[in-house]
């Protein structure tokens, strides 16, 4: 380890690792810090990813693909199923291996990677601009200089706050989630299930993502707005008791997902935010892997260019912000409005939507038709939704981008 880097990235999830990878490819001297002992563990994710989005960043690799998904089932409160077939829907990943693979990509491109490195604060230079990181590593405290610091510390997003950016999420803009990885359960081997119900998962949904071999991630996210009355754990326990009373729980995962629009500010002089830390996840599905990697690639490239140009000012780094908005940020705003509308629907509304879609001939049952029926009284929102489906690689349920 040196005491001076071009770019120091805090957090080695997909956002941080892809940023490190592309900044290194661009010729920057990069250090990637991870607070935990393992990269990719503990998993705090449903592990679903859309095919197109994933392939825009990396080629699928059998080492970290658990299962290929060929469609989704959307399930109404009265348990009617809308099946949407798509041979190339996406994948369920093994995040532990996937995250390691991305960090390895960064390392192979020249980045230094360090685990058990817990960032404590930022260093500031002239005019209060960020110019380094203080972190502890096995009882030693180190203070290293960097031209650019990148906050990729996930939903907690404390690093952004240290840099003076407000990153706290409103309760209505966070999903609080619990997931069991279960075995001995009877699920379709290549279909992701989404169960919608205001009663059983308020402001969110229950998912079943098969990982192959009779194993699946069974989880729930509910809006923080409703969590004060009952925790997601209790909703999940009830669902599992009703649907899989004989299943075994191999892993329990817990976490929060930002379902907001991108943070108002994601760059400052010598500072950038990426991934969940920047609130870049898809607000309607909660999928954060692809947006994090898309942002990481843009941020990494811009960081390297800034270093090369000798200009790490906010105005230079805003190039990343602009590219993000063009790539995904604008779409995300529409997704957010869809979220706000869809999660207000009552169980009665959801049942009627399902019945209306099921009255269509099978080949017309698409994600677009679902939204058209669900939002029949919001025509302008439907028009916006149509734009989203045409343009985005992180489609609404793609399955979870």
């Amino acid at each position, binding site marked *: 380890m040196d005491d001076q880097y071009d770019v120091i990235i805090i957090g080695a999830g997909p956002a941080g690792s892809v940023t490190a990878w592309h900044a290194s490819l661009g010729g920057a001297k990069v250090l990637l810090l991870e*607070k935990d002992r393992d990269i990719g563990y503990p998993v705090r994710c449903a592990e679903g990813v859309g095919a197109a989005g994933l392939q825009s960043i990396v080629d699928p690799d059998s080492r970290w693909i658990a299962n290929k998904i060929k469609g989704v089932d959307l399930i109404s409160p009265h348990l009617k199923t809308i099946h949407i077939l798509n041979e190339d829907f996406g994948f369920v990943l093994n995040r532990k291996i996937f995250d390691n693979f991305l960090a390895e990509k960064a390392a192979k491109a020249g980045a230094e990677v360090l685990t058990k490195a817990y960032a404590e604060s930022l260093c500031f230079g002239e005019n209060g601009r960020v110019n380094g990181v203080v972190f502890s590593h096995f009882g030693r405290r180190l203070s290293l200089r960097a031209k650019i610091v990148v906050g990729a510390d996930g939903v*907690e997003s*404390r690093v952004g706050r240290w840099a003076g950016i407000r990153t706290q999420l*409103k309760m209505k803009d966070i999903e609080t989630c619990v997931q069991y990885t279960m075995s001995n359960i009877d699920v379709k081997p290549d279909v992701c299930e989404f169960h919608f119900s205001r009663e059983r998962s308020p402001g969110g949904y229950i998912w079943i993502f098969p990982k192959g071999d009779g194993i699946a991630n069974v989880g729930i996210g509910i809006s*923080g707005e409703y969590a*004060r009355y009952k925790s997601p754990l209790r909703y999940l326990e009830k669902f599992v008791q009703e649907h899989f009373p004989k299943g075994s729980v191999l892993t329990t995962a817990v*976490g*929060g997902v930002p379902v907001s629009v991108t943070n108002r500010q994601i760059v400052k002089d010598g500072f950038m935010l990426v991934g969940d830390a920047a609130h870049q996840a898809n607000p309607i599905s909660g999928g954060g892997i692809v947006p994090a990697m898309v942002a990481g690639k843009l941020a990494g490239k811009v960081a390297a260019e800034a270093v090369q140009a000798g200009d790490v000012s906010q105005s230079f780094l805003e190039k990343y912000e602009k590219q993000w908005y063009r790539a995904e940020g604008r779409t995300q705003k529409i997704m957010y409005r869809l979220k706000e509308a869809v999660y207000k629907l009552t169980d009665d509304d959801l049942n009627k939507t399902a019945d209306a879609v099921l009255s269509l001939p099978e080949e017309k049952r698409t994600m677009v038709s679902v939204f058209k029926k669900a939002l029949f009284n919001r025509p302008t929102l439907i028009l916006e939704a149509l734009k989203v489906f045409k343009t985005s690689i992180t489609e609404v349920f793609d399955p979870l981008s």
Partner: protein
Amino acid sequence: MIKIKEALCDFCGTCVSVCPVDCIELQEALIKIDQNSCTDCMLCVYVCPIETLEYSHG
């Protein structure tokens, strides 16, 4: 004041993400609330996925 049942905590950071005063310190397997800056707003208690935090008098 807000207390953490540390034995139950999964260190997921969901509470940290909503704390309006950024008073929760979280490491790999360590969590602390800075009681001096905590305002007892209860958001962390409500948002915890697995009911790890609670309000307790004194």
